[in-house]
């Protein structure tokens, strides 16, 4: 890894994003290295079809690249924005009549990731396994299946206020699992996940 790549690995998302907004393609590559695997994993979890997920991720990064000059990083982190784009696109592209496997379950284990999201990922997984069944299911239906509170209530035979309460409890549990005032995945020098580890 050269010096540029090493310093890019250390650079936070915000600094990286400023360069992306200015049209720096290498910065986009670093962001891709850092969050590409998570984006693809999210798209796969939502669509359950790898080819669809790949198109979703490619389109999401294209949208991020196009809209970068107008994005305000003070409103949300780059990571949250990117995941929001990927999730929205994945839900829209999700094929009908395809079985979507469960994501959040007691059987979840740390997947050995070593990228910038590793610390958060492991802490998050530990928190997820502490959620009770209804909380985890409500969380899954909302985030990975794109169901509204009303749809979840119908699915789980609960009232909407009960679903809102379940979701609140679940999110608060997750929130407590990540470092306070620092919920953004941080860059890790030389890691950046799968991409930087791959020769190119």
């Amino acid at each position, binding site marked *: 890894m050269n010096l540029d790549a090493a310093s890019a690995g250390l650079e936070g998302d915000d600094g990286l994003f400023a360069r992306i907004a200015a049209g720096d393609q290498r910065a986009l590559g670093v962001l891709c290295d850092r969050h*590409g695997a998570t984006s693809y*994993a999210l798209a796969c979890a939502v669509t359950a079809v790898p080819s*669809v997920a790949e198109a979703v991720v490619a389109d999401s990064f294209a949208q991020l690249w196009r809209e970068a000059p107008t994005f305000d990083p003070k409103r949300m982190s780059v990571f949250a924005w990117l995941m929001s784009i990927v999730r929205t696109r994945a839900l829209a592209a999700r094929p009908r009549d395809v079985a979507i496997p469960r994501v959040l379950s007691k059987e979840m284990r740390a997947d050995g990731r070593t990228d910038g999201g590793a610390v958060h990922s492991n802490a998050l997984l530990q928190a997820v396994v502490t959620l009770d069944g209804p909380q985890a299911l409500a969380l899954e239906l909302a985030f990975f299946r794109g169901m509204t509170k009303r749809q979840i209530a119908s699915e789980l035979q609960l009232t909407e206020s009960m679903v809102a309460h379940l979701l609140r409890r679940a999110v608060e549990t997750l929130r407590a699992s990540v470092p306070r005032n620092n919920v953004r995945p941080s860059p890790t020098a030389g890691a950046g996940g799968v991409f930087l580890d791959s020769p190119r």
Partner: protein
Amino acid sequence: MTHDELREQAAAYALGALAPWERADVEGHVEACTACRAELDALCEVASLLALSAPAVDPARVSALRSRIMADATGGRPILRASAGAVPLPPKRSMWTEATPWLAAASLFFAVVAGAGWIEARSEGAQVALALKQTAVTLAARDSMLSAFLGPMVHVVSLSEGENQAPRARVFWNHTRKEFIVTAFNVPPAPGGKTYQLWAIRTGKPPISMGTFDTDASGRALAIVPVGDIAEAGFIDNCAVTLEPAGGSPQPTEAPRLMGAWRHVD
């Protein structure tokens, strides 16, 4: 909506689980409540971390995907970097040899026909659904561009290397929509560290920058950009293109490479 009501709905909002009217209620509240805004933003950040709980994927596929991401993303960048509000466009197609309204209309027609034929040839299911969505987005963008060409108050300037020379770029100005539509063809890509810059020329006054642009390997460029501050410039006689250092110059540093006079499109 009270603070307590917002607190109860905030997690559902962050997870995208509210109906549109409920979202509007939440957003209406945080518009005027800084504390709730901060709380909502924090929950949205937490919700985004759920992506990290998705099962790990095949590293080989991720690695292959990187090339596609870079090609797709950077291939669709708006050409006028100097204008922050530039409207993103779909990837360019080869039929845009000259960006006249007639060819724009033809482009739209062929896009529909080709899209329909392609869709018929594909198997049913996910790929068809995705293709339909992508085609719809592409057509919506084309439609938006077409309407900008066909408005009742449109001026155009054809830019060439000199009188009686074939045009190599055109700029359409839609008064109603306050937009420039910039097209270039047969303009070689700018050398490293350089960019093309578009200028509004006014008699007896300094030129005004309309933005910078770059062409692709085939010498083409296409974008819609807002008129912005230049609308205050008053009457513009001509338009010119120069080659400038990357990022553009406050004033032209060379004689125009391309130039033309504005005229009305009837």
